[in-house]
Structure formats: structure tokens, C-alpha cells
């Protein structure tokens, strides 16, 4: 393998470049990144960066360039994997005999808002800069979606002294991920910090003055005046540039247990990669840790030319909101029992264990990083620890 192209220059792309060099690849690496920025860390965008306490230069993920060619501010328009050609938005064609797909995704947007200013999504640095510019003193913020991003944005806006309403279609926030008890606790965190939380109600439409949003009309008929609306309603994997490439796409780039696609010289990592688990399901993870961990395995398989190793997710996620640190690892959905094993949710310091058939398969901690670190290492391994390759 002489040239590897890495398409996508965020965490998963950067980690792929780092792993290529770590694992001894001495050939040419070309990184294609749609954003003009060098790889930066995204988690602070909803927290310290949005709050204005962390400057943009602190977000840089690496000071090294790993002797790679960084084509930033350039999009990959299409790829012909068999010919080993990547066609860029500049008209340039990159020849590569290995390809790492790390294009992540785009946030879902609220229908009917594309022409309205004051309506935001949050994924990139530019998104965060634009949102921050709108968070002027006295503005009224409506956050749609009470997932991680929505909760963190709401929390940051409250810390800036802004009036915040969170609208969530489900009756309990985060219920699918955390179960009803801990989901209700997330609801309490919002309420404790003066957020007006509207649960079990969807968004109907938006009021505006012709160009700028002025409010959100809910399905129950209520109208929330708003100067700023933030949508935290999930993302879609960026695979449009792969249409016609022959690579199997279905809610992401389909790959095997080792992040290898149907073509052995093409691997996918991060939010865009929908890989096969040992149980035979295809899953995607939209988390920082996944983007950081997958490249280790994907690059190993890419350089080996075949799937020699399988990816095993740690399932580690964290969130800082309303002054508490939440950490989750392992599996938290589809469990039989959630038991608080240390501390108390009322004190906002506790550790809960998620059990299936009596075995601990997941752990959640609030403000207890130490015990969390110990617990996550003791989680029951999923069945079939020795996963056969491919």
C-alpha cells in the first residue's frame, strides 16, 4: 500500500492518521477535510467553548501533522474505490490504494427553518461560533430535544443567565438510553436549574418576522416566544458522496466486525461506520470514544489487507451538564434491572449498575469518576469475547 486517503478530518480521521503512522505505515497519507479547520475537539463546543471560557485555539486535537498532506476546506465529491480515485471539489483527483472513510455526519434540522436566522444546530466549530454570537444577554432560548446535546446547550445557556425552554417529544428524556428512573433524573436536573421543560409534546411550526425566528408553536397549541432555537434532534451519517461508489450504504457505511467494507482496501470509522457486532447486528455509535477507538482496529485491518481484528466498543460516553458529570459505559438499554450501588441520586452523586440476567453489563455514574473507572473495568464481557474475524 503506497497511498492512503483519509476522508474526514475530525477525531476519527485524525486518529486514523495517527494509527497509520503508529502501525508503521510510511507511505503517503492524504487527508481531505470539508472544514477549513485543522482537527479540533468537539465535546467542548456545547460546554466551555459555548460558554466563552475556552478559546478556540485550545480545541486543537494535535500539534503534529504526521507527515500527511492535509487538504482542508476541500470536499470529496465522489470515489471510485476500484480505480482508487477520489474526486475532490477542487477538481483534483487523488489516487490512493487505501481509503479510510471518516466523514461523520450532519445534524438533523427542523423542518421549515432553513430560511430562518436564529435557528441553530450544533456539530462544528462554525456552528458553535454562530450560536454563541446569537446568545446575547436577555435572549430567550428554545432547545428542541433533551438528549445529550440539547441538555448541554440548555445547561450552558442557563449558566449564561438566559431564559431556556427545552421541548422534548418523549415523556421522559433519555429514556431509551438510560431507562425511566435515570431519565427522570435528567428531567430533574433541567428543572433544578430553572429550565422550563416541556415533555411529551412535539414541535408544530415556527413563528417569524419574515427572516428571523420569533417563536415555536407546539402541537399542544402553546406558543413559546424565542429569539434563538437550537435543534438537538440527532444526526445523519454523511454518505451522499459515496452514492454510486459500489460501497454498501444503509444508515452509514456498512462494514464487518473490523470496520472493513465490502472492499478490503476501504475501511470506515467513527459516526459514519455501521459495523457488524459479534451478535450479527449492524450498529453505529455517535460518540467521541468510538471515533477515537475504532481507527486502531480499522487501520490494522486496512494495512493487513484483510480483517484480522474485530472492534469491541467500550461504550463510554460522558456529559457535563448543570454542574454534574455523567459517565456511562457498556450497555444501558434492554436491561432487566438498574440498581444504585453507591451514593444517592438525590445527592447528585451516585453510581448505578445496569444488569441483564444478573450480570452487570453497564454502569452510569454521576459525580463519581473514581468508582466509575473501577466499575467499567468489571463489566461483564458480552457473549463471545473471542470474536472471530469478519
Amino acid at each position, binding site marked *: 500500500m503506497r497511498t492512503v486517503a483519509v476522508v474526514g478530518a475530525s477525531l476519527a480521521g485524525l486518529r486514523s492518521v495517527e494509527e497509520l503512522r503508529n502501525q508503521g505505515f510510511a507511505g503517503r497519507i492524504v487527508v481531505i477535510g470539508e472544514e477549513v479547520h485543522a482537527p479540533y475537539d468537539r*465535546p467542548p463546543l456545547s460546554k466551555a467553548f459555548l460558554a466563552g471560557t475556552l478559546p478556540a485555539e485550545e480545541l*486543537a486535537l494535535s500539534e503534529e501533522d504526521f507527515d500527511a498532506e492535509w487538504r482542508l476546506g476541500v470536499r470529496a465529491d465522489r470515489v471510485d474505490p476500484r480505480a482508487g480515485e477520489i474526486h475532490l471539489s477542487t477538481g483534483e483527483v487523488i489516487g490512493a490504494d487505501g481509503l479510510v472513510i471518516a466523514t461523520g455526519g450532519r445534524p438533523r434540522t427542523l423542518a421549515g427553518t432553513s430560511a430562518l436566522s436564529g435557528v441553530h444546530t450544533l456539530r462544528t466549530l462554525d456552528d458553535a461560533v454562530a450560536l454563541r454570537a446569537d446568545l446575547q444577554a436577555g435572549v430567550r432560548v428554545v432547545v428542541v430535544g433533551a438528549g445529550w446535546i440539547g441538555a448541554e446547550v440548555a445547561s450552558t445557556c442557563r449558566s449564561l443567565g438566559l431564559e431556556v425552554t427545552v421541548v422534548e417529544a418523549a415523556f421522559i428524556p433519555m429514556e431509551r438510553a438510560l431507562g425511566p428512573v435515570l431519565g427522570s433524573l435528567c428531567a430533574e436536573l433541567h428543572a433544578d436549574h430553572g429550565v422550563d421543560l416541556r415533555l411529551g409534546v412535539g414541535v408544530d411550526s415556527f413563528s417569524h418576522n419574515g427572516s428571523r425566528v420569533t417563536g415555536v408553536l407546539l402541537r399542544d397549541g402553546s406558543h413559546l416566544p424565542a429569539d434563538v432555537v437550537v435543534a438537538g434532534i440527532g444526526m445523519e451519517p454523511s454518505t451522499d458522496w459515496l452514492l454510486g461508489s459500489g460501497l454498501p450504504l444503509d444508515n452509514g457505511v456498512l462494514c464487518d466486525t473490523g470496520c472493513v467494507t465490502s472492499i478490503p482496501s476501504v475501511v470506515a470509522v467513527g459516526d459514519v461506520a455501521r459495523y457488524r457486532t459479534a451478535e450479527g447486528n449492524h450498529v453505529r455509535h455517535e460518540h*467521541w*470514544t468510538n471515533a*477515537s477507538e475504532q481507527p486502531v482496529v480499522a487501520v490494522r485491518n486496512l494495512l493487513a489487507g484483510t480483517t484480522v481484528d474485530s472492534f469491541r466498543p467500550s461504550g*463510554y460516553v460522558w456529559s457535563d451538564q448543570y454542574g454534574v458529570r455523567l459517565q456511562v459505559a457498556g450497555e444501558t438499554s434492554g436491561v432487566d434491572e438498574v440498581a444504585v450501588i453507591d451514593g444517592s441520586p438525590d445527592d447528585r452523586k451516585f453510581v448505578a449498575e445496569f444488569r441483564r440476567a444478573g450480570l452487570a453489563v453497564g454502569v452510569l455514574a454521576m459525580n463519581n*469518576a*473514581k468508582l466509575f*473507572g*473501577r466499575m467499567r473495568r468489571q463489566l461483564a464481557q458480552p457473549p463471545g469475547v473471542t470474536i472471530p474475524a469478519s
Partner: protein
Amino acid sequence: MITACAVEDLPVGESVRIPGEPAIAVFNADGEFYAIDDTCSHQDASLSEGWLEGCFVECPLHAALFDLRTGMPTCLPAKKAVRTYPVLVEDGVIYVDTRAREAVA
């Protein structure tokens, strides 16, 4: 020189956080005591709450690994070293020498 704790209060594999500016984390790594800045050089996390393995501590937030002997990170996301401090044990008490603080970049 600041007092960390009694030797008997810091068994192998344990850590203690000394509040202050900056806060310092003291570890007992297989019988050796090490002191480093408590706050991860990457983002706001207390290294005293991290996972200790040999003479490395893993940041409890993002799993960046720091060498307790040098303060150097071994992997992303941390890029900058944390400061290390000499540790002294006298009459069963662990002390941290913070005078070296200015000498380290």
C-alpha cells in the same frame, strides 16, 4: 513543602487530592509515591480520580494516559505534560515539594 497525608492512609493503588492552586494528586503506585498536577492538561478532570496502572494514571474523563514519573501524556487527547513534584516521606508522613513548581515549564 506541603503535607499530603500519612503513609498508612495511602495504600497501594490509591490516590489523594491536595486542594490548592493548583491542586495536586499524590499516588501510591506499587509502593512508590508520585505527585503531579491534579487537573488533566486536556480538560477539566481530576487525575486523582483516575485509574492507576503501574506508574501510569488514566484520566477519568477521556482516558489520556500520563506517566507519573515524567508527567508526559502517552496518547491523545492530552498533548501537554502535567507538572511533577518531588515527594518526601518522613516519620510516616508524605510531603510534596511544591518549590519546583516554577522550575517546570
